[in-house]
């Protein structure tokens, strides 16, 4: 490695973030408990600066650095911006909640930022090694975040489950990567792609590697049949951490999958397309049907996530730039939707009370019609009813698979969203049709109220004028995948 050629500019936001995390960590040792709120401000400030740096370094063409391990392109920059945004939203929503539960500590913020750093590396990796490093940084931070609530039996249990299963999945992934390495002799995604196209690699070995990789990826996405951890982790974690697990990491995992399958193994599209089709159908079916039976809303949303991941995979398996863009758009909208739904749960929880069953939402309309409306918008958006953003996400994906003539898959997917509509409607029913069981006043910090409102209204605004974001997704895909 020639140090003189090392260009640090593309990784500027990451470098800044690393520094800021260390500062927050150090500071934690020196300030008193009463001033812990400072971390909150610092973390938000860090995210804001990172976002500015990201916009400043938004690349016109993909730029590689760190000996080709790290790439900064439109895709990674767009997704990183979304991740800063969603992490900031999570912090705002969590502020009161974690304070009430004694989690307002430096570790919470530094771990959250470490997780974000890991995600940044995942979306910017252009080699199997850096991909894996980013993934592990994310996963380890998330395990510890869940376990941070150490007095809670449920949280400890779900951290343990997540850790054991996550380690297994990482193992599968590494095993698959080693086979690809064995077949192609390289870990660089672009070189792997070239080697496969040139047919110099052993096909048998490649397909075996692919199977292990897809299994590992599906675990990280939480797609059936590797979804078992999702409901337990969602339910067991403190709601603030659930939001952390269910928000930005889904975006990162999506880009992770995209980098490996599309940038690295695109020549094997016929192989992974069939695998993903099966996984997608199963995820939509099992996710949606099982969600109907849930009474715990966090668990219900976990199954709903599984079904959303199935939808997302549909876009991916289309194997066309439009399909990838549709899947990216879906992922962005999904994160936006999950933010509001968990945000409402966080807002309705208070010291000594967890809002987590469907009954806890009953009569929300009579308690506070504004929050009820926000949740209404989110639920219909998740169900894919126009004119909300969730509709265009589903629409884009269905259009992409129709483009490759997989109409049967399109019909299956719309039937699954019909089933899904039932449990989203049930949430709306509880909010609007039923009488309140709990009539205590809802208190939210002003900043949370504002962000939550903007967050939900964004779903409606993006439902009326989605064009800008769609174009952004398409351009990002076009630029980042131009190489192949």
């Amino acid at each position: 490695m020639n140090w003189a050629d090392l260009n640090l500019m593309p990784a500027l936001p990451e470098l800044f973030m690393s520094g800021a995390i260390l500062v927050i960590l150090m500071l934690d040792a020196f300030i008193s408990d009463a001033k812990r709120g400072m971390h909150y401000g610092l973390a938000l400030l860090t995210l804001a600066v990172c976002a500015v740096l990201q916009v400043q370094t938004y690349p016109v063409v993909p730029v590689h650095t760190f000996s080709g391990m790290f790439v900064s392109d439109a895709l990674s920059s767009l997704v990183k911006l979304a991740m800063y945004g969603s992490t900031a939203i999570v912090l705002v929503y969590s502020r009161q909640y974690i304070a009430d539960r004694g989690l307002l500590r430096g570790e919470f913020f530094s771990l959250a930022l470490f997780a974000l750093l890991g995600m940044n590396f995942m979306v910017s990796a252009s080699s199997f090694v850096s991909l894996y490093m980013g993934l592990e940084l994310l996963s380890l931070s998330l395990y510890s975040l869940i376990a941070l609530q150490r007095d809670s039996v449920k949280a400890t249990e779900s951290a343990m489950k997540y850790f054991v299963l996550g380690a297994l999945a990482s193992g599968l992934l590494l095993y698959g990567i080693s086979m690809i390495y064995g077949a192609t002799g390289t870990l660089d995604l672009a070189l792997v792609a070239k080697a496969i196209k040139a047919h110099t690699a052993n096909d048998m070995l490649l397909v075996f590697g692919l199977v292990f990789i897809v299994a590992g990826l599906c675990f990280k996405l939480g797609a059936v049949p590797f979804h078992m951890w999702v409901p337990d982790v969602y339910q067991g974690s403190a709601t603030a951490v659930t939001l952390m697990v269910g928000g930005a990491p889904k975006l990162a995992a999506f880009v992770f999958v995209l980098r490996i399958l599309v940038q690295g193994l695109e020549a094997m599209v016929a192989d992974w397309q069939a695998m993903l089709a099966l996984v997608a159908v199963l995820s939509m079916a099992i996710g949606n049907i099982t969600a109907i039976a849930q009474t715990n809303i966090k668990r219900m949303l976990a199954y709903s996530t599984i079904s959303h991941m199935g939808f997302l995979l549909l876009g991916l398996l289309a194997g066309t730039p439009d399909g990838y863009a549709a899947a990216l758009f879906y992922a962005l909208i999904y994160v936006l939707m999950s933010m509001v739904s968990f945000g409402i749960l966080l807002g309705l929880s208070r010291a000594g009370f967890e809002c987590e069953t469907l009954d806890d939402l009953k009569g929300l309309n009579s308690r506070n019609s504004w929050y009820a409306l926000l949740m209404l918008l989110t639920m219909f958006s998740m169900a894919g009813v126009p004119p909300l953003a969730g509709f265009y996400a589903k629409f884009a994906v269905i259009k992409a698979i129709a483009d490759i003539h997989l109409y049967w898959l399109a019909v299956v997917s719309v039937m699954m969203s019909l089933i899904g509509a039932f449990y989203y409607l049930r949430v709306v029913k509880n909010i609007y049709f039923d009488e309140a069981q709990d009539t205590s006043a809802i208190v939210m910090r002003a900043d949370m109220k504002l962000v939550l409102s903007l967050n939900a209204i964004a779903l409606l605004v993006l439902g009326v004028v989605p064009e800008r974001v769609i174009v952004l997704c398409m351009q990002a895909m076009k630029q980042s995948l131009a190489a192949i």
Partner: protein
Amino acid sequence: MFTNQLSLVIWAPIVAGLLVLATGGDQRATLARWVAVAGALIGFLLSLPLFTGFDNLNGGMQFEEVKPWIASFGIQYHLGVDGISMLFVILNSFTTLMVVLAGWEVIKKRQSQYMAAFLIMSGLINGAFAALDAILFYVFFEGMLIPMYLIIGVWGGPRRVYASFKFFLYTLLGSLLMLVALIYLYFQAGKTFDIQAFQAIAKIPLHVQILLFIAFFLSFAVKVPMWPVHTWLPDAHVEAPTGGSMVLAAITLKIGAYGFLRFALPILPDAARELSWIMVALSLVAVVYIGLVALVQTDMKKLVAYSSISHMGFVTLGMFMFTGSHLNQWAVEGALVQMVSHGFVSAGMFFCIGVMYDRVHSRNIADYGGVANKMPIFAAFMMLFAMANSGLPATSGFAGEFMVIMGAVQVNFWYAALAATTLIFGAAYTLWMYKRVIFGEVSNHHVEEMADVNKREFLVLVVLAIAVLGMGLYPQGFVEKMHLSVNDLIAHVAQTKL
């Protein structure tokens, strides 16, 4: 009047609805009502230039607006009305005004949300009728489920939850399949969602046409509703508040029938012709069998709900009267007249039942008797609507049914004979109900305490009565508007796409 008249007609009620919502809780209910009635009135007035400024000699689209919307998906903000859809935009704006008045002091809880839901829905319905882009249509078509779901679920009767879920999921089932069909057509039409481009597709193989027709059928037949997918309607109607029933019957059912005219027939003419015997059979089952079902109802609202299904059977019958590859002009125009007429008549019937329900809190026929003694003015108005519902000449109900039967005779005598039974059944169930409820001795102390209609109710009844009589005496005023558009449609359907 304005260059973007249609946009105004769509967005004015929606903006008014948001304003009503912003008035807040029940403590400012009076303000909410007045804002709502102002919004509905403005919406109605804005829709009138569509009628007065309509060029009868132009069968194509008028008041067109085209703006780019989601260019990357080939979706445009494309609006326009022809002689068919224009009538429904006005009918809808009119009905919204009636509904807002009908819910005036009757709705006790969350008035602002109630009024807002109706206004927003009114805008969405106008959008569905005016949209010339398939996805724009779909957005409006599905979007209206949200307010309707809430209207039934929040302000409905005892089984409102069941009814609202059934309504939502039934309609969603159909429309989702239609979405896939629309996406298929998008690729066939050269990556555009323009409905006129869909209609202009030159070739679609018959088996594909039939599959697409089934998708459209499921979507629109559920909305119409046709037998046997009609079962959501009696539940939804009975549980919905008066205003909800009025809008459901007067407007949302029409969107289903309109969908057949705008999508299924012109885009898939060959499938429509091949499958027309099924459509005719289902329509006749609706007319005859559902007519008989209505006869045995003990609940007034359910009776009118079944009578709606039966009348809509007439509409779908009229739309699928093929001779060779030609649709019958009488039948199609009759179907359209019947649609508009049924809008007025069913709104009137449901409003009358609502008036009685507000006083006695029962919809059971058996709980009434001798209402005429206590409410003579009301009884006179209800007589008019009952007569119109049974198709008495000089009311609007007669014109449409007569035209459809005329058309059916030209196609097949037996179709006409079966369809004509409705004149007997319709008269039987409506007038029998009327007799039991209105005539006779005062049957119990509830009826004894009934007071005649107040000014607000009188206003609604008068306006609806004028509409019913006006349309019955001079249907030509409506027919001449739609005449050329229907001609175009028939010419279009006659061209095979095989």
